[in-house]
C-alpha cells in the first residue's frame, strides 16, 4: 500500500524564528507528488510554472518544481503527516 514515506525523502525544520517545515520529495517521485498536490490544492499564484502558492484546507504553502514544499505554522508532525496524506495519496 502506498504511503507518505513513498513520496517524502526528508522533512526539515527551518532555522529561524519562523517555525516552517520544508518537505523534500524523493527525486524519482517528485513529479508524481507535485501532480497529486496540484490536483487537490487550490493554486493562488504561480511563477513561470516553477513555484506554486497553494492552499489546502486553510493551510497555505508553497510548492517548488525542484520537489520541495514549505509549510507554515503546522502544529506538529502528526498534523503535517495528515496533511501530506491528504495531498499525496
Amino acid at each position, binding site marked *: 500500500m502506498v504511503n507518505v514515506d513513498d513520496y517524502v525523502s526528508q522533512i526539515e525544520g*527551518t*532555522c*529561524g*524564528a*519562523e517555525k*516552517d517545515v*520544508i518537505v523534500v520529495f524523493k527525486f524519482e517521485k517528485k513529479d508524481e507528488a507535485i501532480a497529486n498536490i496540484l490536483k487537490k490544492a487550490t493554486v493562488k*499564484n504561480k*511563477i*513561470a510554472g*516553477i*513555484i506554486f*502558492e497553494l492552499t489546502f484546507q486553510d493551510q497555505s504553502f*508553497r510548492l*517548488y*518544481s*525542484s520537489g*520541495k514544499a*514549505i509549510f*507554515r505554522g503546522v502544529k506538529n508532525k502528526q498534523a503535517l503527516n495528515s496533511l501530506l496524506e491528504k495531498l499525496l495519496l
Partner: protein
Amino acid sequence: MYEKARERIAKFINAKNSNGVVFVRGTTEAINLVAYSWGLNNLGKGDEVLVSIMEHHSNIVPWEIIAKLKGFEIKYSKVNNDGTLDYTDFERKLCNKTKIVCLSHVSNVTGVINDVKLIGKIAHENGALMLVDGAQSVPHMPVDVEDLDMDFMAFSGHKMLGPTGIGVLYGKKEVLEKMSPFQGGGEMIREVAYNQRKEKCGIVWNELPWKFEAGTPNIEGAIGLGAAVKYLDEIGMDNVLDHEKQLAKYALKRMQKNNKVVVHGPENLSEKLGIISFSIEGLSSHDVALLFDNYGVMIRSGYHCAQPLHQIFKLDSSARASFYVYNTEAEVDRFIEILKELDQL
C-alpha cells in the same frame, strides 16, 4: 604527510612554528578546547569574558556552559545599526575583570571585518587574552597571527576548500604550554607509568601540539586541509580577497537597485568581506532560499547560527549569499536575475 600539513598551515597563517597549530574538528571544537582547557582552570567568580553580540553560537555557547560551572560573567558588546562593532561599547566593557576577549574576525552574517589587532592590543593592555574566531577570515583574506598578536585563533577546513571535520586551533606556545589537555587518551601523553607500590598511574603530557590531540587523529582531513592551503597559497590570499570584494561590490550595486531587497550590514565595502545577508519584503528567507535552490543556486537561510545578532536586527531570519574563489560575475548576474523573479511573489 600529517605533520607536513601542519607545517604548511602554520606557514599559511604565519605562525612562528607549527607546534602552535592544533588539529581539531573545526572552529567549534577549537573554541570549546579553549573554553574547557583554559576557561575551566583560569576563570572564576568575579571574572568576565567579553564577547560581541555578532558572534556565531560557537563563540557564545561554550562560554555560557563554562560560566554556569565556574560562576564568571559574560559581557556582550553591542553592534551599530549597520552591524559593525560598537568599539566604544567594547572598550567600555573591557576592564580589569576581563580575562579573555572572544571576537570573530569577520561576521558570518554581515561580513563585517573587526579590527582584531586593535582589540587584541587593548585586551593585552588590560591583561586579558584574545581569542579570534577566524572561520570567516582565514579562508578569505591574508591572516598573519604574529602581526595580529592573538593568543588563539580558530578556523575550519570546510570553509576553505578542505574537508569537513578538520580545523585548527592556533595558540601562542607560551599560552598553550600552561594549559591542561582538553581530552585524554592516546597520543596526548608521553608516559602513563604505573606505580605498583602506590597502585597509581603517573601521567606526563606529550609536547605541543600533540598534548591537545587525543586519540587517532583525522589524518586524511589534515592532509586534505594541507592540500587546500597549498592551493590557496598558489592563488595568493590577496588575490582571493580582491576577487571576492569585486564580486561583492558588483552584487551589492545591483541588489541596491531592487526596492524589495534589504541588505543587512555595512554599505562600505572596506568594512566587509564577500558575505551579503539580505531580506526580501514580505518573504521568509526560506522561501527565498528555495526559490534560488529551484534555479540551482545555493544560498543560506535562517539565523546562520547567530540568533542574537538577528534579534538585534529585529529579523526572524535572513538569506545569505556568499562568494569564494570559484564564483564568477556571470553567477552574480544569474543571482540578480533570480532576485528579480521574486518581485512576482
